[in-house]
C-alpha cells in the first residue's frame, strides 16, 4: 500500500506533499524537496476568523514555552510570541527577529543581528536583555524546561550593543540558528516567570485564554511583519473525540482540525468543503523498554518483541497508509544519514522465539503499558499482542489512564509506549531522547559511545564523517533492546478549502505548528 497513490481530495491543499514524493527525513541539510505542485500566487486577503479544533483537551494548556509539550501549546506559542529564526521547508533557518547571523570558523561563537523597532504587545520595546533571558531561563533551576539539554552546550549569551547578541558554545554547532528558532525559545520579557497573562511580540495578542476550554487570539496591530497577519481573529478549542472532530470540519463549524483518524480521512478527502492536509515526517510512536528494571533490562526480550510487529499492517491498517516503515531507530529513510546497510526488521516468529529462548522468559506474563494519550499505541499494542500469542510470549496489554501516563507509566513500567515529534535536526532529537539524564530518555538508556557520537555529529563539519557517525548511532539504537519503533507517522490534518497560504513543514501539524501569521481566508 505504501506505493499506491493516495486518493486525497480532488484538489490537494496547496503544496501538500504526496506520500511518495516525500517521506520525511533530515531537515537540517536541505533534504526537503519543494512540493510537487506550486502554490498559486494569489494575493492574501485580509479579515475573518479562523477556528481550529484541537485533539488534546488539557487544563494544563500553557503559555510558558519552557513547558510546551503539545501542538496546542506550540500553535499558541508561534502566534503570540516571535522567535529569533524560523525553519523553512528546506530545513534552513530563515530570519525572523534575528535579521542575520554569522559564526566564527569553528562554529563556536555566533553573532545574531537583531531587527530594530520590535515591541511587545504592552508597548515596551524588545531588548537584548529580553532575548538573553528567553534563552538562558531554560537553565534556571526554578524553570521546568524540556530544553535543558539543548542549552547545555551554550556557555554564554551576551549583548554586544543594542542590536547584537553573541552566543558562545562549548562545542561547535553549525545548526545553532535552527536551534534558537524552536518552540521553547519563544521571546518573552526579561524576568517573566508567570505566564498567565502572556506578553509577546507575535502576530496575535490574547483576547481570551481558558486552559482546556478555549483560546481566542486577535490581530496584533503593531506586529513587526508589515501587513501580517491576514486574519483578524484565531480561535482554538478542543474536540477530543476523533469522529466528532472530523464531523465538525465536514459540517463547516470549524475551519481546521488536528489529527484526522481512520475513516475520517477518507470522508474529508471526499468532501467538497475540506481537504486532507498531509505532512509526512518522522514523528513516531514507539514501544520502549526501561533498561533499568526487570524484565525489560533483558535486551533479548525486547529484541524478540521487535520481531513481533507486522510493520506493513501497522502502516496499512492503523495509519491508513499515512506513514513510513521504520527500523527501530528514529532516523527516517529519506535522510541522507539513513543507514541502509542495517537489515530491516520484519515480522519473524522464528527470530522472535530465538531471542525469547535466549532471554529465558518462558511463560512469564509480560505487561505492555499503552495509553490513549499516546497516539495509536493501543492499536499497535494489539497487533503486537496477537503475534506474541503465536510466538508463545504471554504479552498482556494494559491500557493506562491518560493523565498520569507521563508521570506514572512512561519510564516507570517495564514496557510502555512513547511518542515524539520530529525535531529540526536529528542531533536535537538524539540529545533530547537518548542522552543520559535527558527528561525524554524514557528508557533510561546509557551508552558512553552513543553519547560521544551524538556530540560528534554536532561538531563534525565533514559530511562523510557525519554520515558514518549517524550510521553507527542507528546501529546502536537498533540493537539497543531499548526501543521498538515500527513506523513513522505522517501528520494528517483537515483544512477547509477556504483556507489558503498553508504550507507543510515536517516538524509538526499544519505547517510545523507555525502558520497563523500566514494563512488567509478566500471566500
Amino acid at each position: 500500500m505504501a506505493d499506491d497513490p493516495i486518493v486525497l481530495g480532488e484538489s490537494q491543499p496547496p503544496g501538500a506533499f504526496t506520500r511518495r514524493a516525500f517521506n520525511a527525513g533530515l531537515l537540517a541539510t536541505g533534504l526537503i524537496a519543494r512540493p510537487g505542485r506550486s502554490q498559486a500566487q494569489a494575493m492574501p486577503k485580509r479579515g475573518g476568523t479562523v477556528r481550529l479544533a484541537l485533539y488534546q483537551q488539557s487544563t494544563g494548556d500553557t503559555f510558558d514555552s519552557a513547558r510546551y509539550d503539545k501542538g496546542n501549546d506550540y500553535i499558541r506559542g508561534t502566534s503570540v510570541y516571535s522567535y529569533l529564526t524560523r525553519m523553512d521547508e528546506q530545513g534552513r533557518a530563515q530570519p525572523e527577529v534575528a535579521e542575520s547571523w554569522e559564526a566564527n570558523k569553528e562554529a563556536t561563537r555566533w553573532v545574531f543581528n537583531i531587527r530594530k523597532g520590535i515591541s511587545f504587545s504592552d508597548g515596551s520595546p524588545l531588548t537584548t536583555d529580553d532575548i538573553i533571558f528567553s534563552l538562558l531561563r531554560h537553565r534556571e533551576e526554578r524553570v521546568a524546561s524540556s530544553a535543558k539539554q539543548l542549552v547545555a552546550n551554550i556557555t554564554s549569551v551576551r549583548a554586544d550593543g543594542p542590536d547584537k547578541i553573541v552566543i558562545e558554545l562549548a562545542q561547535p554547532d553549525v545548526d545553532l540558528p535552527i536551534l534558537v528558532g524552536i518552540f521553547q525559545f519563544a521571546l518573552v520579557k526579561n524576568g517573566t516567570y508567570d505566564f498567565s497573562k502572556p506578553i509577546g511580540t507575535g502576530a496575535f495578542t490574547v483576547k481570551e485564554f481558558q486552559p482546556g476550554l478555549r483560546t481566542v487570539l486577535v490581530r496584533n496591530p503593531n506586529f513587526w511583519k508589515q501587513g501580517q497577519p491576514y486574519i483578524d481573529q484565531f480561535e482554538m478549542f478542543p474536540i477530543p473525540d476523533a469522529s466528532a472532530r472530523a464531523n465538525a470540519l465536514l459540517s463547516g463549524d470549524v475551519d481546521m482540525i488536528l489529527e484526522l483518524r481512520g475513516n475520517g480521512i477518507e470522508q474529508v478527502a471526499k468532501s467538497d468543503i475540506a481537504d486532507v492536509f498531509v505532512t509526512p515526517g518522522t514523528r513516531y510512536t514507539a514501544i520502549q523498554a526501561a533498561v533499568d528494571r526487570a524484565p525489560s533490562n533483558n535486551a533479548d526480550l525486547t529484541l524478540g518483541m521487535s520481531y513481533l510487529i507486522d510493520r506493513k499492517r501497522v502502516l496499512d491498517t492503523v495509519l491508513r497508509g499515512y506513514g513510513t516503515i521504520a527500523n527501530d531507530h528514529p532516523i527516517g529513510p529519506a535522510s541522507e544519514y539513513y543507514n541502509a546497510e542495517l537489515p530491516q526488521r520484519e515480522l519473524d516468529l522464528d527470530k522472535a522465539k530465538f531471542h525469547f529462548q535466549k532471554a529465558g522468559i518462558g511463560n512469564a506474563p509480560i505487561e505492555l503499558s499503552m495509553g490513549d494519550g499516546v497516539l495509536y499505541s493501543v492499536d499497535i499494542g494489539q497487533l503486537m499482542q496477537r503475534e506474541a500469542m503465536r510466538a508463545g510470549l504471554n504479552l498482556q496489554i494494559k491500557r493506562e489512564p491518560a493523565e498520569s501516563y507521563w508521570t506514572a507509566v512512561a519510564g516507570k513500567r517495564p514496557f510502555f509506549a512513547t511518542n515524539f515529534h520530529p525535531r529540526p535536526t536529528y542531533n536535537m532529537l538524539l540529545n533530547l531522547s537518548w542522552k543520559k539524564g535527558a527528561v525524554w530518555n524514557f528508557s533510561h538508556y546509557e551508552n558512553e559511545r552513543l553519547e560521544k557520537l551524538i556530540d560528534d555529529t554536532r561538531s563534525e563539519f565533514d559530511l562523510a564523517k557525519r554520515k558514518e557517525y549517524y550510521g553507527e548511532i542507528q546501529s546502536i539504537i537498533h540493537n539497543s533492546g531499548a526501543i521498538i519503533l515500527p513506523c513513522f507517522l505522517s501528520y494528517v490534518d483537515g483544512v477547509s478549502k477556504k483556507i489558503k497560504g498553508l504550507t507543510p513543514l515536517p516538524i509538526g501539524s499544519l505547517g510545523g505548528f507555525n502558520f497563523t501569521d500566514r494563512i488567509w481566508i478566500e471566500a
Partner: protein
Amino acid sequence: MANIILWRLGATLLILLVVSLLVFWACEILPGDVAQVALGQYATPENVRALRLEMGLDRPAIQRYLEWLVGALQGDWGRSLVTKTPVSSLLSERLANTALLAGVTTLIAVPLAVLLGVVTTMWNGRAFDRAATVSFLALSATPEFLLATLLVLLFAVNLGWLPAVAYLSTGSDFGQTARALLLPTASLVIVVTAQIARMTRAILGSILSQPYIEMAVLKGIPRQRIVGYHALRNAVGPLANVVALNVAYLVSGVVVVETIFAYPGLARLMIDSVQSRDLPVVQACAMIFCATYVVLILLADVLARLFDPHSLAERPTDAL
C-alpha cells in the same frame, strides 16, 4: 413538614462535609499529585518539590483541608492549582452552560415523557403501547455516544442543517446559542424522555392495580379519566423522584454529550480536573453536584408528601 425540611437540610450539610472529605482523601491517594501531573514529562524531583512548595502542597493534608473548608464556608472556593484562576470564575461559564442544557432538556423532556407515559398507559396493550414500550427500552439502552454521533452525521454532516459542535464563542447571540444547543439537547431529550416515559408507564401501571382504582373502574369512571387524573395524581410522588434523579444526571453525568459536542459544561470540567488532580476545582464541582442531588431529592420528597400523605415516595424506579 417544615421540621422535616429543616432536618433534611441539616443532613445535607453533613453529606456535603462527608463528600468533601471523601473527595479530598481520594485526590490524596491517587497516583501522581497535581505538581507531578502538571510537570508531566518534565517532572524531576527538584522541580516537583519546587512546584509543590509554590502550590502550598508542602503543608500537612489536614491543614490544607481545613483551610479549604474555612474558605468554602465563607464562600471562597480558592484558586485552581493548575490555571491559578479563582475557582468561582472558572466555574461561572460552565455552570451557566450546564444549567442551560439541563434546564432546556428538562423543560422539553419531562412534559413529553409524562404525556407519552400517560398515553401508553391509556392504550395499554395496543400496538402503540407495545411499540412505544419497546422503543423506550431500546432508546434508553443505546449508548449516548452512538446516539449523539448518529444525530451529528444526519443533521450536521449530511443535511447540513445544524452545527456539529455546541461550542459557543463568548458573546454568541441567542440565535447562535439556540442552534448550537439543538443537537446536544435532542440527544439528551431522547435519552431522558425514554427513561421517564418508561417509568411513568410502570408507575401508573402499578397504581392502576391498586384496589381503590379497581373500585373506580367498577364504579364506571372512564379509563381516560382514571389514568389521566386519579392515577396520575397518585403518581406525582414517585414520578417526582424519577424526574429528580434524571435532572441530577443532566447536571452531573452528561460527560459523553459534553465531550462529543465540545460543550463546556461541569461534568467534563470535573473529569478534566480529576485528571489534572486540581483539587479545589474537583471539590467545587463535587459540592455543586452533591448539593444539586440532595436538594432535588428533597424537593421530590416534599412534592410526594404534598400529593400523597401515605408516602409512596420511593418506588423501584430510580435506576440511572
